[in-house]
């Protein structure tokens, strides 16, 4: 128990952090829709301009406005991130509930599969899946969602194991409710907070891996404004001193990832009031 400064207890601080992170992401999303595509036309502005007031992040070797490109790229990352996390969460919930409810054999098999997926080097398998899916956004989504569900599946499994023998579920079963009904009406609501937090905490990982994959050159075509592609193109222009092509897009990416991390973390703490005094 630490003494808190007057007026600012930990929970208030948490809400403030949450508001800042959410506000930042909201502004980013808003900008991505309002910024005009004109700035992305070739030769729309002066080439290779260092950052200035009219071009916050400077322009690249084709005269494209880097601020616009970065914001649009981040929107793509967020979309892919949301979709992929959702898929992963679905796999995790399914696996977790199956492991906890379908008896010992299912549990052993699923634990083994989880161990298998945790054990393999993730980026390496994402590359393989990306390649086999024939590249494109499809490959990225598949590659990332197939490798990120494991940790959450374990959490879901232990949560379900805890409530499985609770009285209200036993009673519901004895009234002849089907397993599907029990899972939907009793188990899902009970594990929902954990699943939600798992979803939020998965986001940063997913975005980072998406950026890494596109940086390596898997998946998206070079015209797509994805952060990874922006950075890998900028790599060729480093030795001529165009630092702004690298520094700002990456910095914004770090801020986005950190915001999601912070949102997930604040939510986690809110559901565990005991740790809010840390």
């Amino acid at each position, binding site marked *: 128990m630490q003494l808190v400064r007057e007026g600012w207890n930990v929970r208030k601080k948490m809400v403030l952090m949450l508001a800042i992170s959410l506000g930042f992401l909201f502004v980013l999303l808003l900008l991505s829709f309002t910024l005009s595509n004109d700035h992305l036309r070739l030769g729309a502005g002066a080439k290779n301009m260092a950052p200035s007031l009219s071009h916050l992040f400077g322009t690249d070797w084709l005269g494209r406005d880097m601020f616009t490109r970065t914001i649009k790229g981040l929107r793509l990352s967020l979309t892919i991130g949301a979709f992929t996390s959702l898929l992963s969460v679905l796999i995790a919930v399914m696996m977790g509930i199956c492991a906890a409810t379908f008896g010992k054999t299912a549990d052993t098999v699923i634990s083994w599969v989880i161990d298998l997926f945790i*054990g393999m080097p993730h980026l390496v398998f994402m*590359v*393989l899946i990306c390649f086999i899916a024939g590249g494109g956004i499809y490959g990225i989504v598949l590659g990332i969602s197939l490798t990120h569900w494991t940790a959450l599946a374990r959490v879901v499994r232990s949560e379900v194991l805890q409530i499985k023998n609770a009285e209200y579920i036993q009673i519901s079963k004895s009234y002849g409710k089907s397993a599907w009904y029990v899972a939907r009406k009793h188990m899902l609501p009970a594990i929902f907070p954990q699943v939600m937090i798992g979803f939020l905490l998965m986001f940063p990982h997913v975005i980072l891996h998406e950026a*890494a994959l596109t940086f390596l*050159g898997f998946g998206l075509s070079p015209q797509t404004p994805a952060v990874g592609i922006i950075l890998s193109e900028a790599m060729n222009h*480093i030795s001529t001193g165009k630092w702004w092509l690298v520094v700002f897009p990456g910095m914004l*990416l770090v801020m986005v990832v950190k915001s999601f991390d912070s949102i997930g973390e604040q939510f986690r703490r809110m559901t565990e009031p005991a740790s809010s005094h840390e």
Partner: protein
Amino acid sequence: MVATISVRFIRMLTLLFGLSILTFTLVHLSPIDPVNAYVGGDGSASPEQIEKFKAYWGVDQGLVQKYGSWAGALLEGNFGTSLLYRAPVIDIIQSRFLTSLALMGTAWVLSGVIGYALGVIAAMNRGKWIDKIIKWYSYTLVSTPIFWMGLILLIVFAVWLKWFPVGLAAPAGVMESEVRWIDRLHHFVLPALTLSILGVANVAMHTREKMIDILNTEYVLFAKARGESSWQIFKNHGLRNSILPAISLQFAYFGELFGGSMLAEQVFSYPGLGSTLTTAGLKGDLPLMVGIILISSLFVFAGNLIADVLGKVVDPRTREAG
């Protein structure tokens, strides 16, 4: 103790078996011609040779037989032929392995030692500014893409300060035999630094948590009451209680390390296993890809096994309890 280790070991073998099935299935799903995929179809192979390959590798057989002959060849160390380099996959892996091992090994040791030290310092000074800095640093690092970090280091140290070269493992245009080790070191520093900086965060945060738990115990309170200094408390109580989890964690970190090294190698055009895998993936060299994936997975599984065994068996407390 022996029993526990063997159970773990057998479990790892089953996982490796599962991994090979998974890889095989994935490869089989791919649109690539199976002859190219499994044999590593050399472009110069004659039609008769291809026929022979087909018969040998059982293209016209069922899936199970196919898997059998593929896995059998793997066990004999036959990973097929790379399409890209026109050489046996195993030779390519061998030639890149040491370069990568040096990079990852250095980063592994450095990030472990520095991360542990930072974690301990943060915990011993909990709530003070140094703790806050270390915490902030670690949390930010976790959100930082490793390739961006590498690019930043490249801009600062290679382009602005010109301390280090921009890429590759040795100066360009110099014969392999004439490369001095100091040149190699020169090219090695930035990639290794990049990989180490990011590996620090994980260990630091876990060690900090662990140390805080230890510092809150009664025996540490008693030690303080006896008048032990911070250093004595660390040496007598903190070190032996916190070093094992940290080492376990580092061993379990192999997978991330390999992924990180793929990215770092790409940034610095460092010719290790990671960048070879990236090239293989981009150019569609399936045999090489599968070879590197299997080797790296073997590595990662071994790391996980060691982490498991360290955590469960070596610790004298769990040994007595078991």
